[in-house]
């Protein structure tokens, strides 16, 4: 045995990932242009259209339907904007280059943004759930709440991939505009603001193209609302979309050295 064996200090990877994620979350929480719409719009819309001005015709349960779909509308934002805008800014301003030069573990950059997006998704779920159970009068089984939480939190992933890809294409000032052009029309065309049955047949037929449609159907199924297709089909579509955009983004990032 060598008496001089010493334990060399090592980098604690969990600590790196934890700090990176915490700071990414704080960074975006402190950006009003991101945090205010992301955290305020879903509960605001829910209060307006599911609680105050609910139509309540027939068997359409606006309070439950919109809890599911505004949740999806809400969690798309941290994925699309959180990734899209911050990646575009980091690239443009040289922060990403410095991080790649520093001995940052390769996965920490994206992992921290994923955690950030999932934290925002959790907060959005919690605020909507709070409003829904209090003034919204929603009563669904605990299993449904859990299922909806899982759908919302994991549902950010495909939108993170799309946001990441957009972030590799455009600069920081152009990113919000591009993402809004994707975000708002897709939400509408996927039946997140009103049921697809209230929309023209052409829109309905085209809906399966949008990732937001698949996530919306999963969320509706989670809270026991009528939904199209099978959970497996939706999950497969969302996973395929996530992988597709992740590959595109990786190619873009590799080329922009």
């Amino acid at each position: 045995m060598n008496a001089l064996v010493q334990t060399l200090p090592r980098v604690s990877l969990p600590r790196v990932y934890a700090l990176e994620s915490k700071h990414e979350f704080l960074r975006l929480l402190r950006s009003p242009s991101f945090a205010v719409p992301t955290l305020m719009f879903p509960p605001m819309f829910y209060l307006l259209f599911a609680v105050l001005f609910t139509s309540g015709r027939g068997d359409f349960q606006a309070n439950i339907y919109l809890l599911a779909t505004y949740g999806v509308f809400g969690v798309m934002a941290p994925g699309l904007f959180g990734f899209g805008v911050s990646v575009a800014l980091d690239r443009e301003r040289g922060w990403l280059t410095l991080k790649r030069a520093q001995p940052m573990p390769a996965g920490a950059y994206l992992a921290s943004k994923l955690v950030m997006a999932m934290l925002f998704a959790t907060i959005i779920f919690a605020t909507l759930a709070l409003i829904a159970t209090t003034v919204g009068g929603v009563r669904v089984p605990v299993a449904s709440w859990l299922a909806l939480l899982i759908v919302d939190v994991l549902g950010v992933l495909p939108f993170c991939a799309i946001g990441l890809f957009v972030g590799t294409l455009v600069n920081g000032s152009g990113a919000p505009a591009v993402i809004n052009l994707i975000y708002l029309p897709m939400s509408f065309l996927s039946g997140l603001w009103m049921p697809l049955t209230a929309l023209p047949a052409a829109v309905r037929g085209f809906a399966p193209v949008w990732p937001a449609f698949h996530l919306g159907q999963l969320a509706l199924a989670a809270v026991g609302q009528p939904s199209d297709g099978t959970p497996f089909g939706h999950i497969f579509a969302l996973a395929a979309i996530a992988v597709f955009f992740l590959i595109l983004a990786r190619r873009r990032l590799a080329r922009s050295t």
Partner: protein
Amino acid sequence: MRGDGLDPSAQLRAVRKHYGPIAALDGVDLDVHAGELLALLGPNGAGKSTAISLLLGLSDPDSGQARLFGESPHVLDVRRRVGVMLQSAGMPDTSKVSELLAQTRSYYPDPLDTDECVATAGIADLLGRRYGKLSGGQQRRVQFALAISGRPQLLFLDEPTVGLDVESRQALWNAIRALVAGGCAVLLTTHYLEEAEALADRVAVLARGRIVAEGSVREIRARVAQRRIRCVSALTLEAISAWPDVRSICRDGDRFEIVTDSAETVVRQLLREDTRLSELEVQRAGLAEAFVEITQEAA
């Protein structure tokens, strides 16, 4: 291939790198050793940034090798011995300085104490502030703090003192000198030639993708025979400028400034022709003059 103590801290070997038809680096050899500061100088577009990005593993050479401590810069364990300050590193505006520092320190196995880091970079009053609220000079100091936070054995400083006031620049120079004295290897690029003159053990001049001069500051300066003579004299501008060894001359009232390759000859003639000549001063060309001359030759 494992790195041992004998490998240079940073090394480029016969490196070529093209961007399309343009050769950014065209066969460059470069070594930086422990305990020395190498200043890499060159006009804009000479290939300095490319050299740094190859050494940091941000891009790969078309041919040749970039090595840190004898290993590929892509190896994470090797980069854990390296500190980096890049020319543009716009950190998130809403992050606090303390957060940026904690994050960067976490990448390194044996980082400097926060207090030590903060004191060396002079950012004690900035820790609680958001990065976006800082002045350009304050941001530069924060970037320096991050660069040294990992107790690096090799430090890349790309234009470190741009935007700094005189006092902060001096403080930073002292910090860099202390690091080099402690055995750290430093690769510095700068547009301020007085900075290279003040800090560099060695200078390498890059022009059009090639190293066109390399040596100590004294050696580089000696490559240029030019000297500068100042004096007060009653002689006329026309008379002096007609002398064989005078390269250029300018006059401000009765004060002359003469640039020459042969100061002794010109001084002898000055004293002979104007016995009342006063305030005579002879100065060797600075690094700035040498740099201009070397890069013009290379062009």
